């Protein structure tokens, strides 16, 4: 097997990376619009309305504003850590999308342990938050970073265990295989067979992406803006993009593992995948504008006293049922 730089596989990887980068950027625009519109309607106001019809061009205006702003670094901040943090936060986003199967054929890269790749690279985001918090030379940032660490270390465990229960059932870490093992109808989906795992996973996913009601690392009312207090312009923009991209990834994983992926009762295809992913994204946005932020001790109590035991019991029952029946 001779392979050069002009190899079709090489070409495929480059094309996939470009397509994914475009996908991430476009989705961020769509999600910003959705977020602001939903927030508006939840609070009985129309949301953005001025730029374009129904405010459709508002995210573009936001993006241009962010790009145009000057980048500041506070005095006494560690320049290396400060500028590295947004980049470290954004770079792992692209590999995250590689193994996600939008369609049987629409996969950027067939990675055998695809789920493991996603779990490995999502963990890097916390590191970026820590670097931002430490490098900013600001107490709010540092407090935000320390919260981010405690939160993500805690919530990663039940998240992994919930996913482990599903991979137990299918004996595979490959997302495409798990999607294919589920049927087209909702009662054949893993969310129906493993409801506890689904609920635990989704709760932990909201917490891992630092979304309200678990957005303690940036809690505006307590910490100004938490870890990104000192970032302006695209420094903040990259954190923001990474957060939205991570939201899409956790929802896409939930779709593939629990909601039957691209399979639907009729016309199976990537549109089902996108529809399900967006339904979950809407639920996350809906959470944000419905629930008040939890207190920090409540946050940790929910995890260590409820989610962790629940996911452990679920895992053991799954293993037992798998072996006995």
């Amino acid at each position, binding site marked *: 097997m001779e392979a050069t730089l002009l190899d079709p596989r090489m070409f495929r990887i480059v094309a996939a990376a470009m397509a994914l980068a475009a996908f991430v950027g476009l989705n961020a625009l769509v999600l910003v619009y959705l977020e602001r519109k939903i927030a508006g309607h939840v609070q009985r106001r129309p949301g953005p309305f001025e730029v374009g019809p129904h405010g459709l061009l508002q995210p573009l205006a936001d993006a241009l504003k962010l790009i145009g702003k000057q980048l500041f670094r506070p005095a006494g901040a560690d320049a290396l850590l400060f500028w590295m943090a947004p980049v470290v936060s954004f770079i792992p986003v692209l590999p995250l999308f590689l193994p996600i199967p939008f369609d049987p054929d629409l996969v950027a890269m067939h990675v055998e342990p695809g789920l493991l790749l996603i779990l490995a690279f999502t963990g890097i985001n*916390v590191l970026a938050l820590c670097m931002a918090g430490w490098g900013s030379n600001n107490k709010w940032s540092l407090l935000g970073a320390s919260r981010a660490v405690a939160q993500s270390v805690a919530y990663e465990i039940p998240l992994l265990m919930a996913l482990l229960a599903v991979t137990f059932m299918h004996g595979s870490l490959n997302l495409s295989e798990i999607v294919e093992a589920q049927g087209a109808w909702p009662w054949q989906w893993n969310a129906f067979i493993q409801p506890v795992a689904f609920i635990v996973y989704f709760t932990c996913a909201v917490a891992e992406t630092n979304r309200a009601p678990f957005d303690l690392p940036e809690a505006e009312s307590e910490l100004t803006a938490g870890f990104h207090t000192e970032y302006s312009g695209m420094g903040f923009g990259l954190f923001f993009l990474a957060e939205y991209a991570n939201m899409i990834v956790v929802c896409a994983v939930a779709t593939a593992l629990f909601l039957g992926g691209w399979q639907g009762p009729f016309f199976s295809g990537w549109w089902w995948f996108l529809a399900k992913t967006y339904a979950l994204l809407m639920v996350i946005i809906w959470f944000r504008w419905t629930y008040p932020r939890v207190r920090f001790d409540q946050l940790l109590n929910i995890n260590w006293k409820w989610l962790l035991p629940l996911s452990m019991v679920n895992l053991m029952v799954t293993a037992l049922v798998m072996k006995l029946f």
Partner: protein
Amino acid sequence: MEILARLVFGFYAALIVSGALMAVVERGLVRSLVGLIATMFGVAGLYMLMAAPFVAFMQILIYVGGVSILIFFSIMLTKARPTGDEAKGRPLRKRFNALVTALAAGVVLASVILKFPIPSLETPRQVSGQQLGEGLLGPYLLPFELISVVLFVAMAAAVALAWQQWGKSK
């Protein structure tokens, strides 16, 4: 492809060495940690190059996403200032000693490996996750279980220590 593989190997090796240097030379604890993380990434890349994606992802999941974050946590708890003790310059004699010690280990190991190359495959063989699992629960069951015992002891000890501290503070 071989040239590409060599290039990638060179890149990862450079990443590992520069990360390690940064971990040793930098003044601030957090910067040292960043160097350490770069090294861990480089090692994960080398695993990838050896066609062991499972081990590579585990390396990132456990070391980059787990261990380094815990180190970060402990640095925050120690209130390490960038102007603390470790930020002071060291005398030349100590630097020289450190260099000699590091080089000695490196030279000895490298010369042994160059003289007696480890027999290995020409191109790495892909091992599926299933084979890996069967290996761990088959021929390597004892070491696998021993590791879990070690981890359990560490965890129980941590809980016991925290318990003592908690009792004192009450």
